[in-house]
């Protein structure tokens, strides 16, 4: 196949390109320049582009830089700011996957006549009994990135390759070292690539939207404090509320931008039985019944039941937790997994946890 390898300048994607070459594919590397502003961990700084270019050269493949910074602003950065301004908690990495890597980049690859796009994510492509494909958790459970890939549907997977998902991170690093790639010792990227450690999220938001003071009330509506920027407050948050000491830990249970009110309560007040998801993306057809639900990139999945008849993609779904669960901040991505049977080539039959869908917490 002719494969466009998305090279971020990190170790995973450079090893991914090497694996594809080993498998006999015709490989061309591409780095997306996404963010024009300040960045320290980011995936699109000049030094990362240089690392990507150098890795490509070391592997003997051609390399392009695609400037998608306008699309990144439009689909990732601006919605990120708008989401916080509305008191929600966005997940920009998922929006980047949804809109940039698995949309704009896929179309670019189509235009240039590539058969597939490959990324260095720690997730696998699982082939179901009917031959259709699903995102499955990566082999290295500590590094699993299937959560951030839920917008990649079964039909997208017909032209997406995720070779790194079969490997542990340690193996990736040792392979990079064996190949002499300069990315071998690079630290994993963390946090949001367009937010710098020195300035932080608050300064970033303050430069792009107005931040508002808000009162903090308890579950009876009694004012117990104040915060400088309600846009910085997230449901479930415990620290940074400037509260006088109390016997029991208190958490944010509600954020209402329209009335500039942050409500706090006990751990019990934070718990709920129900979770409603909007903007549902089903991997293939809608599922029903029990699912394992993961609410953050590195969270554990908990069991829940889809209570309403699952609607179409873009619709909503109501989940009932099997055990009471902390409220999920509105705006957060929530991913549903199910165990499926199946057999990897040459492996004994085993159940695999695959992404069946995901959505945005209401």
């Amino acid at each position, binding site marked *: 196949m002719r494969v466009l390898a998305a090279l971020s300048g990190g170790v995973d994607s450079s090893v991914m390109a090497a694996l594809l070459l080993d498998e006999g594919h015709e490989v061309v590397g591409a*780095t997306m*320049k996404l963010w024009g502003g300040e960045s320290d961990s980011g995936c*699109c700084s*000049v030094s990362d*582009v240089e690392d990507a*270019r150098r890795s*490509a*050269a070391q592997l*003997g*493949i*051609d390399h*392009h*830089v*695609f*400037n998608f*910074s306008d699309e990144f602003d439009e689909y990732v950065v601006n919605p990120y700011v708008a989401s916080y301004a509305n008191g929600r908690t966005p997940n920009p990495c998922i929006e980047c996957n949804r809109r940039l890597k698995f949309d704009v980049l896929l*179309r*670019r690859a*189509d*235009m*240039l*006549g590539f058969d597939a796009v490959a990324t260095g994510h720690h997730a696998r492509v699982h082939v179901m009994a009917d031959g259709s494909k699903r995102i499955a958790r990566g082999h290295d459970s500590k590094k699993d990135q299937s959560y951030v890939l839920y917008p990649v549907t079964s039909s997208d997977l017909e032209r997406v390759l995720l070779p790194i998902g079969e490997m542990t991170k340690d193996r990736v690093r040792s392979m990079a070292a064996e190949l002499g790639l300069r990315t071998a010792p690079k630290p994993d990227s963390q946090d949001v690539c367009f937010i710098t450690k020195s300035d932080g999220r608050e300064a970033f938001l303050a430069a792009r939207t107005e931040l508002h003071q808000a009162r903090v009330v308890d579950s009876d509506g009694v004012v117990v404090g104040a915060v400088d920027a309600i846009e910085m407050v997230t449901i479930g948050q415990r620290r940074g509320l400037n509260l006088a000491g109390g016997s029991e830990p208190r958490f944010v249970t509600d954020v209402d931008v329209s009335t500039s009110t942050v409500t706090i309560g006990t751990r019990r007040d934070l718990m709920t039985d129900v979770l409603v998801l909007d903007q549902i993306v089903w991997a293939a057809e809608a599922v029903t019944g029990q699912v394992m639900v993961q609410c953050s990139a590195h969270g554990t999945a908990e069991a829940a039941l889809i209570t309403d008849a699952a609607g179409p993609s873009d619709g909503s779904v109501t989940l009932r937790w099997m055990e009471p669960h902390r409220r999920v901040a509105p705006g957060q991505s929530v991913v549903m997994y199910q165990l499926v049977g199946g057999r990897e080539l040459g492996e004994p039959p085993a159940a695999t946890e695959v992404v069946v869908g995901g959505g945005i917490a209401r």
Partner: protein
Amino acid sequence: MSESPEGVIYLDHAATTPTRPEVVEAMAPFMNDRFGNPSGSHVVARSAVNAMDEAREVIAGIIGAEPGDVIFTSGGTEADNHAITGGLPSRSGVPICSAVEHHAVLDVVEALGGRTVAVDSQCRVSIDSLKAALDETGEETSIVSVMLANNEVGTINDLGPIADLVAEYSPQERRIPLHTDAVQAAAWLDLRAAASRADLISVSAHKLGGPKGIGALVVRKGTPIRPMILGGGQERGRRSGTPSVAAIVGFATALRMVDSERDLVTERVIGLRRRFIDGLSESIDEIVATIDDARTVPGTCHVCFEGADSESLLLLFESAGLVASAGSSCSSGASEPSHVLSAMSVADKLRDGAIRFSIGHGTTEDDIERAVDLIPGAVSRARAFFS
């Protein structure tokens, strides 16, 4: 990987043009037995300094300056920076430049708190706008900088009226210096005439068949200049650092060839460009030549393909075997929006699909015919995927 891609049609000569074989040959002795440091006084040093003196005379003669006016620099960017700042400490006052200058001028002017002057839709400096800027800064004006030929669209500026205006605004005791960035012009125009009114002129060797890493700032007598790079006091104290003798010899060799072939090459390249534009216009709808070709240097052919984006066009051209550019590139290699097209108020729908094809001394008729054959297919594919 394409280390030195064979068979690729190269229409990016304004970015850089191949080093001529004669240049490489002329440079070789100075990386072999004539390796001396020209600042020394012994026989090995003298062998190098003689070659450098000769090169300086050749270059000065072709630019229309005195040998003592020529300061060798690391290239066009250093020459531009040196001209605008005036050296260390920088000239007092407010620098003025056109809004379409290369960043090597524009960014220095901005860093010094200077002003920019508008251009018209053909990228010519607006005399009214320059007048307004001079009215405002008056005798505080430290320097005026207007490029001779624009690097993206190729428009040539007539420096005569600009020099007249600058002279008019100069205080009696001090001429406001006029600088011209002639980096793109030097491969095509006779600078003896075209740059005669400029007090400072920047030139770069690699745009005209010389090596990279060498250029010159011409500073005419009476124009104040201080060194920007301090050290051993080379170049009469105006630019320190051991000169790259081989590169300087290569620069002179290339410029001499450009000068002797100018009329023939100009006529031939204008013919190629005509054929190229006519060929594209025949087979592609909604294609706009950004500048009337009578106003540009012969090699530059800036075109806007409506309903496509530059980056996709360039990628598809490259897959089909042709390389060109979309104007400026940032350090990561990605295409950047053009400040030149913005200043010219080119409509967004045209700007999106802007491509600079630039023809060089070595471009053949066959290159142009092949380009005219392959471009339409790439354009229709880019248009099909454009959103």
